[in-house]
């Protein structure tokens, strides 16, 4: 009897290692790409200013689209309907931020579907999308696809508007990494603008899961943000549990999945008084 239980336990343990076959068996102990390698060239400064001279504007934020998922369909038609319904209203967004996990398993076919979606947003609605890299995008060596398909083809970058700086971090491997943190420190210390930061993994969650697991680097990051005029942090990754957290001098909003929860967010930014107003919305 005891032997039988031992065998069943061993089989269950082995099965556990195969749960991520779809995402690449190699991912068990080697994740395919390395955050230090991906961010070795430092932060890319984009020349873009998607809001030009506007004083107040909206940003459409979506997270975890998971193109290619067999569990749910991406509700892009619902989003198009929503955008049609708010044309010429004050809710109209100036650009889009996608918080990562654009694809489900990092496969090229999934990136092609995702790119078609972004092209539709650009061509039909004039909305440019700024991408954040997520952990699912890196499955199956998907990083090679991400840097080919997702603008601006590097995961660690920033751009500036009149008064704000927008930072995009690479937390696709559940960590910020030593290189990226050092580059970020240098850049933020030389940039006096108020800042909005996008990251796939939330910097902090009150629970033990779905956030940066190494609390040491998380604390360093929070401290860096507090010292350098970060106003707002947005994160995804969690899917079904949006969370709003005050972290002293800045706040963090965690957005649930666009595909699994039919949600997105609008962030209203006022350049003149440097304020932000966040609204989570559900697609009908």
């Amino acid at each position, binding site marked *: 009897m005891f032997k039988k239980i031992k065998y069943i336990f061993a089989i269950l343990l082995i099965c556990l290692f195969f749960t991520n076959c779809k995402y690449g068996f190699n991912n068990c*102990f080697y994740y395919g790409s390395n955050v230090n390698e991906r961010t070795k060239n430092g932060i890319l400064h984009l020349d873009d200013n998607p809001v030009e001279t506007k004083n107040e504007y909206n940003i459409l934020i979506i997270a975890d689209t998971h193109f290619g998922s067999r569990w749910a369909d991406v509700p892009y038609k619902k989003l198009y309907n929503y955008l049609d319904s708010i044309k010429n209203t004050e809710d109209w967004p100036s650009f889009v931020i996608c918080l990562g996990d654009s694809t489900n398993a990092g496969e090229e076919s999934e990136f092609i579907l995702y790119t078609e979606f972004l092209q539709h947003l650009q061509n039909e609605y004039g909305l440019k999308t700024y991408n954040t890299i997520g*952990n699912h995008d890196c499955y199956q060596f998907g990083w090679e696809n991400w840097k080919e398909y997702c603008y601006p083809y590097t995961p660690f970058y920033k751009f500036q508007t009149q008064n704000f700086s927008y930072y995009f971090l690479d937390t696709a491997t559940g960590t910020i990494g*030593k290189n990226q943190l050092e580059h970020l420190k240098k850049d933020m210390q030389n940039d006096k603008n108020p800042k909005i930061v996008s990251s796939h993994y939330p910097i902090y969650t009150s629970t033990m899961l779905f956030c940066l697991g*190494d609390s*040491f680097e998380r604390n360093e990051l929070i401290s860096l943000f507090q010292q350098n005029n970060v106003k707002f942090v947005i994160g995804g*990754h969690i899917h079904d549990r949006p969370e709003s957290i005050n972290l002293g001098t800045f706040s963090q909003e965690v957005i649930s999945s666009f595909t699994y929860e039919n949600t997105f967010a609008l962030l209203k930014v006022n350049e003149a008084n440097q304020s932000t107003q966040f609204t989570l919305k559900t697609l009908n």
Partner: protein
Amino acid sequence: MKKNFLFFFFLFSGFLFANSFDFSLKSPSIFLRSDFSYSLLNNVKKTGFYSSTRGTLDFSTLNVDFGYQLAKGNSDFTFRTMYGPNIQNKMNLKFAFTLNHTNTINFAENNLVFGIHYDTQPSEIFKFASHLAYLLKLTNISTSNLKIPNHSMEIALYFDWFALEKLNPFLYVETSSFFNHFLFCSVIFSLGCNYQIIEKLSLGTSLAVTYVDFFTVSPYHSEISINTFVKFQIR
């Protein structure tokens, strides 16, 4: 009725197995251990060389461990105590409490760990131990005096072999170590051995790989370190 039944069941079991539990304290063995480590793949906490010193008092049913670790820009202090019976000379089941304090210029972090430790030596050449615990992480960010809590858990499996007379290999798989308490589920794999030079002095070495986020099947090796240690039995 159900409550009464459970009460008498446990009371009866207590009497029945009382002789199997040995809570007696023995005169302590005292160990001192110094570790010197080098990080081959640096993470934010550990860069280049770092070292730690650790003392252990072993009263058989009571264990007390304390030590500190110094790395570039940060320091850790850890105190751990475990108490519980030896059961039928076959296994130890102990309640464990750990307090770890991490300090840097930017923040201070206290980790309070409450758990159960189990170890057994089914044969002369093999020892197995495991640890399951609840972690309360309390962080104070100095910049704004922001206090943030986290609730998490810790699991560890320890395998030690005594197949050779003086050379003992070991494999540890743990979601936290004595000085590092991650949020679930980062995993540290340590493979190494220690060699007994003379009766009370041994040297050891290990290779440790730390992975972050096994939970969302995105494990990424965030740190690789080589560790050498010297362990001395004072008494």
